[in-house]
């Protein structure tokens, strides 16, 4: 294989895996933002909660890794409803400053709580043997865990597409995102829709937290340090749209990887340059509506 082709395959594959991870972690944030206009800066805290749940489940309870991912998805989703019912619902009509203050406060409280119980040390897990090492596909081999990430991402996209485009509840969510007042006046219970999407979005964050341990490691500051990535994806993609989030994740994931691979010296800056460029041309994001 010529080196140039090899390089392009490397970048596309790693970029795709990174993009899938960004998609899974950001999609919930994007939908809840589009639906209710709530800027949930504690989204990373739900992801972190999922990560620590996976650590405890695999290390202390002996649950297999894949099962513990599903536990993280469900438990974080359910627990997030409690927060939504008690705290977030106060925010629907509040100013953006109030939203940001409360949710960033929650994120800091989560950091302190998890530091208290788990300590500041990074946590690691042992992924099962069938997810570690490399997968040989033709002339190339690929890291198995990243192939798995792409698979999970693809499955989620299919599930979300079906749920969003083909079910009644999906149609209602789309209607409410398009025009909340109109949706309410035709009898759609937007509050309840929001609870459901919030739970699904937070659950997916929990799942992605579990997936992230092998990728990025897990410390209590997880809640805040990767927040800028999710916000970038939502901003570039345009809030309230699955396809926007997917497009944003793909553009940023691949360009971030390409930047680091090709121009390592300026690599960490590349993703921001791309984001700024896109937002200059389309201020509402790729799929955003003015």
């Amino acid at each position, binding site marked *: 294989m010529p080196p140039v082709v090899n390089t392009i395959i490397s970048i596309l594959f790693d970029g795709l895996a990174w993009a899938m991870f960004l998609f899974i972690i950001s999609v919930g944030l994007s939908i809840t933002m589009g639906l209710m206009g709530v800027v949930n800066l504690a989204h990373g805290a739900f992801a972190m909660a999922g990560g620590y749940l996976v650590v405890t489940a695999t290390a202390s309870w002996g649950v297999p890794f894949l099962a513990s991912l599903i536990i993280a998805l469900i438990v974080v989703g359910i627990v997030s409803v409690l927060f939504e019912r008690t705290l977030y619902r106060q925010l629907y009509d509040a100013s953006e400053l109030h939203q940001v203050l409360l949710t960033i406060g929650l994120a800091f409280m989560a950091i302190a709580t998890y*530091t208290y119980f788990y300590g*500041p040390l990074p946590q690691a897990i042992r992924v099962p043997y069938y997810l570690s090492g490399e997968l040989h596909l033709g002339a190339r081999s690929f890291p198995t865990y990243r192939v798995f990430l792409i698979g999970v991402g693809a499955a989620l996209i299919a599930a979300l597409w079906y749920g969003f485009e083909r079910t009644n509840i999906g149609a209602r969510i789309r209607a409410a995102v398009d025009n909340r007042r109109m949706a309410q006046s035709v009898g759609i219970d937007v509050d309840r829709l929001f609870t459901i999407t919030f739970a699904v979005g937070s659950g997916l964050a929990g799942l992605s937290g579990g997936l992230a341990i092998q990728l990025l490691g897990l410390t209590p500051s997880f809640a805040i340090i990767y927040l800028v990535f999710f916000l970038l994806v939502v901003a570039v993609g345009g809030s309230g749209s699955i396809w926007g989030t997917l497009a944003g994740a793909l553009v940023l994931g691949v360009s971030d990887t390409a930047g680091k691979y090709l121009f*390592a*010296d300026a690599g960490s800056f590349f993703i921001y340059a791309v984001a700024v460029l896109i937002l200059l041309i389309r201020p509402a994001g790729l799929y955003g509506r003015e």
Partner: protein
Amino acid sequence: MKIISAVAASVLTFFFWMAVADAETIKVGVVLPYSGPNADLGNQIDKAFDLYIKLHAKDLGDNKIELVKRDEGPASGANARTVVTELITNDKVKLLAGFVFSPGAIAAAPLATQAKIPMLIANAGTAWITTLSPFIVRFSFSMWDPAYPMGTYAATKLGCKTAAAGFTDFPPGQDSALAFKTAFEKAGGKVIDEVRMGSPGPVPDFTPFFQRVKDEHPDCFYVFVPSGSHAGGVMKTYGDIGMRQAGIRLIGPMDLIPDYQLAQMSDAAIGLVVVSSYADDYDTPINKDFVKEWHAAYGPNSYPDFESAAGMDTMAGIFYVINKLQSNLDDGAKVVDALKGWKHDGPRGLIEIDPQTRDVIQDERAEEVIKKPDGKLGVKVLETFPQVKDECKVLKIGRCGS
């Protein structure tokens, strides 16, 4: 009668002196990251300071040591100047100790000079830090201490003709890569690529950087990251993208295998060669005792690492200087003078503070990660480089020459 009253007087004087001495409490300002993504690094030294004081409190007699702990904050050093100013002006500390990150130490150095307060470094390893203030004494290491012998060892013993260097893009990373490159090329090797791998804060996804190096196919891949969770990320990526199978050998300083991370690493780490000043597995009575006391104090799942060993030696130096100067630490220059040429046998083995450079002299060891009989990962020492001095200052390279 005369004798009795003389005895009584001297006894009274003695008690009076005791009472005065009793009041001595030495305040030491401790600057370590207690929050954020690198809090684990601070934690390793913080535990060592506390453990040393717990084990050796009686060595100070009636004097006491009080640690005033402040958060060094992020790796950028943005917080260090503020907390050091507070420690000097508000808390009136006599000594400053800690400093995990080079940027923090670099930012604080002018304050140590201004206030004439000794600054005792327990980690920050950028070689030229010690030249920034005559009040700096370093107990940990210079980046050159492990990186320079690693360069020679890779070229001569590991048979690497070409190498790539990947490093976290901040002063110690640049320093470590430069040291490796200098020695490796002096020994006949060729560094074909130098890859800056992001910032020292949150752990980046190393895959694009490693993939680039994999496609370039050097014999050896020298990596520096700021230890802790970054080290875990390096090992995972190295294993996941199959660099070993591609025939690329991972090498580096001890930051790649801090003992508390090694316990969690996968078998991908086996065969990794580092040059290091410390490992839990070092078979000396002092180290065996240290590891035992550590587990007794912090539980079986907490492991000391090279930072902790340097932390123990830093606190040993503080105890030495308190006793030597009879608790009178008001003159910072005298404290630094007393530490020059200080020799100590600690967990790392014999160390000395170089009277010329105020930097530590210690043994470095090339060691390989192995699977021990009990199934855990550990290290086997391949070669010892006795009493290594900071080669950057010996060769007077760049800012080390000033």
